[in-house]
């Protein structure tokens, strides 16, 4: 495909409503620069934007105030938060990364030893919006087949914006494009996705699902800086299939995205109420520790819709929560 045709196809593939036109245009433009220029420019743009959209800056400062900063100023943390948000937006689209060799150098997978303990049955990789997005890419790079269950990033949505080698990686490492759970798609898309996820798990396959995206809340976790909603879909999958649940967290170390597989949650117990309690306690400990270590990377909590005043609610809040990256 010629460069012009590829660009046209990439423009048509804009993942709506996650990326506004201007952000998508910027991503496509920055993608032509050598890595990491695009990432850095995007990060700086997000810092600048916070000073233009003061509400954003207020949210960042409020988040920073709620953290134990250990000698770090509130302003430094707030600016770092905006910077990381911009970097994550660029990284979500592998901006400036044109081949697998470069991508492999920028992604590291830790905790693979926990996979062995959960082998032999379906596994649920449970992600959270507490760091750089698309942590499943680390599993794919390491040779694991995994099916992404979620609204975005569906690789099919952004396929034409990805370099061919990375398209091939997605295409060869698990189902991905059919399990659409976009909340704006009224009807029964989410039911279909959850049902199919259950089918995969009962056949011993692995899925990746985020716990804090769109969907019915099973419980809230009280984290430093505010509560985090944890959805019920993965919990039902766990309880009805007995699949192992391995929490997966992601953070940046410099320019490297580190994806960590944590030990599996305790096996399901018969009583759903007791099971929920077990999961809440285990995840509460894990996420509290993560937020304390990387508060500057938890943009999703800092910029969550619930922190906005009602008069700013211009979009269906479920869409905001459904977006791993919300650059608007």
């Amino acid at each position: 495909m010629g460069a012009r045709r590829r660009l046209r196809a990439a423009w048509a593939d804009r993942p709506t409503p996650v990326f506004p036109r201007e952000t998508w245009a910027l991503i496509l433009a920055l993608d032509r620069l050598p890595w990491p220029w695009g990432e850095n420019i995007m990060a700086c743009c997000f810092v600048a934007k916070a000073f233009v959209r003061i509400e954003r800056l207020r949210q960042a400062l409020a988040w920073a105030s709620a953290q134990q900063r250990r000698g770090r100023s509130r302003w430094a943390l707030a600016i770092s938060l905006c910077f990381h948000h911009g970097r994550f937006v660029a990284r979500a689209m592998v901006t400036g990364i044109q081949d697998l060799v470069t991508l492999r150098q920028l992604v590291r997978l830790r905790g693979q030893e926990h996979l062995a303990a959960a082998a032999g049955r379906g596994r649920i990789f449970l992600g959270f919006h507490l760091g750089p997005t698309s942590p499943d890419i680390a599993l794919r790079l390491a040779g694991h087949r995994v099916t992404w269950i979620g609204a975005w990033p569906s690789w099919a949505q952004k396929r034409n914006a990805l370099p061919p080698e990375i398209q091939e990686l997605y295409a060869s490492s698990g189902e991905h494009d059919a399990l659409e759970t976009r909340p704006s798609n009224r009807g029964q898309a989410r039911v279909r996705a959850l049902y199919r996820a259950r089918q995969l798990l009962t056949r011993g396959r692995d899925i990746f699902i985020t716990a804090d995206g769109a969907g019915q809340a099973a419980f809230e976790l009280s984290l430093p800086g505010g509560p985090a909603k944890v959805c019920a879909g993965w919990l039902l999958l766990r309880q009805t299939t007995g699949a192992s649940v391995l929490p997966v967290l992601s953070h940046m170390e410099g320019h490297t995205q580190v994806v960590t597989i944590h030990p599996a949650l305790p096996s399901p117990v018969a009583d759903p109420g007791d099971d929920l309690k077990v999961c809440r306690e285990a995840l509460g400990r894990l996420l509290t520790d993560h937020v304390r270590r990387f508060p500057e990377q938890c943009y999703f909590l800092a910029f969550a819709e619930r922190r906005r005043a009602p008069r700013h609610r211009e979009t269906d809040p479920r869409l905001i929560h459904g977006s791993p990256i919300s650059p608007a």
Partner: protein
Amino acid sequence: MKASDPDEPTLETVRAIVVHIADRSPLDAGPETPLTEGGFELDSVNLLKTILACEETFQVSFDPDTDFTDQTLETVRTLFDLIRSKQRR
């Protein structure tokens, strides 16, 4: 929840399954009551629970691509019709 005769789904059995799973039920809930908005208010998770309970009770299996549509999962009656159509095959 098990039906007395798994080969004979009835509207009442399907309704009982839905009522059992729904967090709240309209006082006048009947066959035409919507499963989701304006009726039993089942979200996707509770809708899936309902489907799994129906599978187990009536010994049917579904094809998510063709069976789970806005029409088939609209009311208790359309769900009942779906189950019956699966049993006939």
